[in-house]
């Protein structure tokens, strides 16, 4: 059990002072997860605040000995889903949103030239498309394990399925994304490259 788990167990039994340790243990991980899925600091903080209020209100239902983070994450995901449903899909951020300053800065760090930037964007777009083609359960499983850093058992709890189910979904998502990445990195035959650039994806002049 982590210190946050123990603190939550104490808080559930009425020790009000323990909530501080719960906050310190859970808030940064929640923030890290939410920033990848929700646009805007205000919205992220609203969801974090709401998550802690829900945890506070439901503290009496917390099982002593259980892990607090999967529970908090499940609440945050539920709230995020509600927010997203209300505000439609534009409230969600794509994995590689071109308008996202963080993602742009991240890309700018690793690319050296305009062509590499274009290539990186093309790969990003293909990966994003492949990611969006994943089934919802696969996407959720992949997010929980690969981006939120939960163990398979924790992710299974949050997603409400078996550990084997989570492993299978993550593996399938990984295989699909890996195939999309390999496909995007595969050398392009000269004729195909010319026709692709003529289609407006890349400027004329060839790829180095």
């Amino acid at each position, binding site marked *: 059990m982590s210190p946050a788990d123990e603190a939550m167990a104490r808080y*559930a039994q009425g020790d009000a002072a323990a909530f501080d340790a719960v*906050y310190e243990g859970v808030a940064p991980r929640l*923030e890290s997860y939410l920033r990848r899925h929700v646009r805007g*600091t205000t919205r992220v903080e609203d969801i974090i605040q709401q998550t802690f209020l829900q945890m506070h209100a439901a503290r009496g*239902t917390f099982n002593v000995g259980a892990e607090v983070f999967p*529970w908090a994450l499940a609440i945050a995901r539920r709230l995020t889903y509600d927010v997203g449903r209300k505000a439609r899909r534009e409230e969600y951020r794509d994995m590689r949103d071109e308008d996202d300053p963080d993602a742009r800065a991240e890309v700018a760090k690793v690319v050296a030239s305009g062509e590499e930037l274009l290539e990186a964007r093309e790969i990003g777009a293909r990966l994003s498309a492949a990611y969006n083609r994943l089934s919802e359960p696969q996407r959720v499983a992949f997010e929980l394990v690969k981006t939120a850093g939960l163990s398979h058992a924790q992710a299974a*709890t949050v997603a*409400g399925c*078996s550990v084997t189910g989570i492993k299978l979904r993550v593996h399938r998502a990984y295989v699909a994304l890996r195939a999309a990445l390999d496909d995007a990195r595969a050398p392009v035959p000269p004729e195909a490259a010319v026709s692709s650039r003529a289609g407006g994806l890349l400027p004329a002049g060839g790829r180095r």
Partner: protein
Amino acid sequence: MSLSPDLKQRIFSSLAEVPAPTRTQVRRARVWLFGCGVVGALAIFFLDGGVRMTSRPPSLVALTSLGTAAIVGTGMWLLLTRGRSALGRPVSWLLGTALAASVLFIGWRYGVSAHYGEIAPWPGRPGFRCLALSVATGALPLLGALLSWRRKVPVSAVATGAAFGAGAGLGSALLVDLWCPVSYLPHLFLGHLLPIGVLALLGGVLGSRLLRLAWR
């Protein structure tokens, strides 16, 4: 990026506005709510005739009831509790438990009755009275369970509600088992197995509305 410094302060100051019962208080409230449901179910059961031996040998009644109690008790424990997780058991677990307990219950009842030669058809008893009694006695504990978990389930609210319904259905099956002498298989399906499904469906529908978290 990091959280704004005043977020923690905002959260801590808003906690006072939200009632937050402790585990002991929640447990007491649950026992009270679920207990009221069980008392209501017993009242309906006894008003409708209570335990009826009819022509059944006492040992048959005792054997079916004890076996059913063991199956139902295990099923209800798995369906109505959450194990060690704060989020409850996986949906596949709940579904498997509900199906296994229902099949075992019907199998036990039919098997023991067949051993005693008490499986003759009862043309005048298709099972509608047992169906009605099972749903009526199961509905109140189901409502108690749903109310005690109101707005507290972040994942699988429908499955949780359905599990509560199946658990309540299994509980009512134990009562109706004491009441009904008919072990003819079509009767068992209509009057004893179907109510578990009906209550599970009702639990799922109500669960989607009552159990799911709502923005405060």
